[in-house]
């Protein structure tokens, strides 16, 4: 047994030598020689040291264990019989206490080979029959050292593998994406907690594809990926709904040693983007509608005029042209508002935040609208505390807020009505109430007042043009300042829009 060692396969490209097998080309082997006889100890030490080993020696089992505890040795040469502790007992102790790093080789006289073999059964790696040639000694020691190193490397590898598996497991389980793995028979074999959450089900053995993906399109896409040729693997991306959520599933083939082995589905929550897209589409539809409506009215009037049927009634023609002009101008306002909203959204509007006095800002807006108000004989009032009402804001933003509110207060007012702007202190904010005495709104009409393109439509508002974007813009601008706007209104009594804006002390 000691003459024909275990078969060792060379690593590709590395020549097979005893040293390379044992790892001796890397570092010397540390050997502990135990023997009661000094001559024997010294003989072994000399041979081993000559071959580059680091040798320590011990006379008794107890001192051997002490030495091993102080500094580890890779190979311990233990005599089968010795005074005090027997070789088998020492072997057992060494394996129990230092088994991870020390390999035991039993030395024995030829007469007791059978006993030595017995000890190898108890955990010694090999045995050496004395007397032995130096070559044989070296060969056994190197083989033992190699065995020890292999055992240690294997243990290290296994523990790394376990660590990596644990890491992969943790990574997959902590992913924001859901992961589902299906085998080639389309059976779900793995789901991470996120996937269970998204699909609203717990993984159990024996699940089927439709259990997880009742949606036909998704199931069909998964089957197509599983069935795709391994040399031309197919990937698919599908959208599916998971309860309230909108999910995107990226399906890729699972290959096992180059053969089709199933599919991996990565599920991500795309609800937010999907909703934003829906909102954007709805907005674009609304814009298209709002642009086409005034154009339809204008073209309709022009067509009526062009028929010539009112050539004998120039006053009627003029009336229609006036309305065309008004609707055309409103259309232009709408385009301007849309461009403003867009440039604001993309951050193209340059803003300078500075301390501003609301009183001054509002007074100048009222001044601007005076001509328009005078035409309808509407009088303005500005009520405010005596001192300055300071806010930190961009002047353009404040102008846009109050321009919209004051313009509405004129448009939806009655002839000879009044428009009152009242500034009051309300805790950490200013409250600015813009109150008109106009047509007012019912509760139902107020409901969507701050939404894009919402316009109250009834007989009282039928001739009034507007873009449907004014109050929506007011709300958007205020949101950027942690401000807000509410409305109180009664039909035929008037509306009061109250804006809150953080105060700057």
């Amino acid at each position, binding site marked *: 047994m000691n003459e024909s060692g275990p078969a060792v396969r060379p690593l590709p490209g590395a020549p097979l030598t005893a040293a390379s097998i044992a790892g001796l080309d890397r570092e010397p082997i540390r050997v502990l020689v135990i023997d009661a006889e000094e001559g024997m100890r010294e003989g072994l030490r000399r041979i081993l040291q000559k071959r580059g080993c680091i040798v320590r020696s011990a006379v008794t089992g107890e001192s051997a264990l002490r030495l091993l505890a102080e500094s580890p040795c890779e190979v311990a040469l233990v005599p089968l019989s010795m005074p005090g502790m027997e070789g088998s007992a020492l072997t057992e102790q060494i394996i129990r206490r230092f088994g991870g790093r020390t390999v035991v080789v039993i030395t024995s006289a030829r007469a007791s080979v059978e006993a030595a073999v017995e000890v190898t059964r108890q955990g010694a790696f090999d045995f050496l029959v004395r007397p032995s040639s130096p070559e044989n000694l070296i060969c056994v020691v190197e083989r033992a050292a190699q065995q020890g190193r292999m055992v240690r490397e294997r243990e290290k590898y296994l523990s790394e593998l376990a660590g990596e598996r644990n890491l992969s497991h943790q990574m997959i389980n902590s992913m924001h994406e859901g992961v589902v793995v299906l085998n080639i028979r389309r059976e779900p074999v793995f789901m991470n907690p996120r996937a269970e959450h998204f699909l609203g089900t717990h993984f159990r053995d024996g699940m089927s594809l439709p259990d997880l993906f009742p949606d036909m399109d998704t199931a069909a896409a998964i089957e197509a990926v599983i069935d795709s040729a391994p040399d031309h693997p197919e990937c698919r991306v599908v959208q599916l709904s998971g309860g309230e959520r909108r999910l995107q599933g990226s399906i890729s083939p699972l290959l096992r040693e180059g053969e089709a082995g199933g599919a991996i589905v990565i599920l991500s929550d795309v609800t937010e983007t999907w909703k934003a897209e829906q909102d954007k589409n709805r907005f674009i*539809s609304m814009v*298209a509608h709002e642009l086409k409506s005034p154009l339809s009215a*204008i073209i309709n009037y022009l067509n*009526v005029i062009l028929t010539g049927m009112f050539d004998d009634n120039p006053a009627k023609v003029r009336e229609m042209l006036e309305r065309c002009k008004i609707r055309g101008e409103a259309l232009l306002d709408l385009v301007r508002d849309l461009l403003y909203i867009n440039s604001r959204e993309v951050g193209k509007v340059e803003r300078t935040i500075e301390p501003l006095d609301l009183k001054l800002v509002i007074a100048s807006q009222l001044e601007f609208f005076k001509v328009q108000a005078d035409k309808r004989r509407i009088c303005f009032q500005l009520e405010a505390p005596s001192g300055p009402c300071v806010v930190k804001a961009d002047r353009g933003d404040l102008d846009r807020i109050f321009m919209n509110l004051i313009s509405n207060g004129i448009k939806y007012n009655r002839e000879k009505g009044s428009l009152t702007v009242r500034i009051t202190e309300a805790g950490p904010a200013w409250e600015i109430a813009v109150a008109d005495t106009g047509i007012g709104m019912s509760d139902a009409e107020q409901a969507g007042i701050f939404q894009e393109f919402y316009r109250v*439509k009834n007989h009282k508002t039928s001739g009034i043009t507007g873009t449907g974007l004014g109050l929506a813009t007011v709300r958007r601008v205020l949101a950027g300042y942690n401000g807000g706007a509410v409305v109180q209104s009664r039909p035929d009594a008037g509306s009061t829009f109250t804006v809150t804006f953080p105060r700057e002390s």
Partner: protein
Amino acid sequence: MARILIVDDDTDLLEGQRLFLEKQGYTVQTALSIEEGLARARESAPDMIIADLMMEHYDSGFVFCKKVRELPGLEKVPIVMQTAAPRKMGFTFDASVSPGREWMKVDEVLTKPVPLEHLLGKIEQYLSSKSRHE
């Protein structure tokens, strides 16, 4: 002479179409909301109705048509819808196939702006087929 009811929340569109159709000899009634439209329809039982789609709500026109069909004598009145809404807005308006027509309760959907001659042609078409059936 035939009576036509136009329901639309755009005063100017109503006015233009009214002026034109009156010159063609029709008796035209207009309404700015579906409530007003239903009241006119109930009072005067028009021979034909032209209705907008997006009024107070995006589907006001459909609500209106459904309610008109429930009025006695108006179960079969021709209704043409005119809308500035894009053709595809979550759902497709197509009254040329029967499921769409039955669901929407309208005979045809026209896209605004509807040329006057086209509108007139549609009115004549529906009124003559109506009189043939009566």
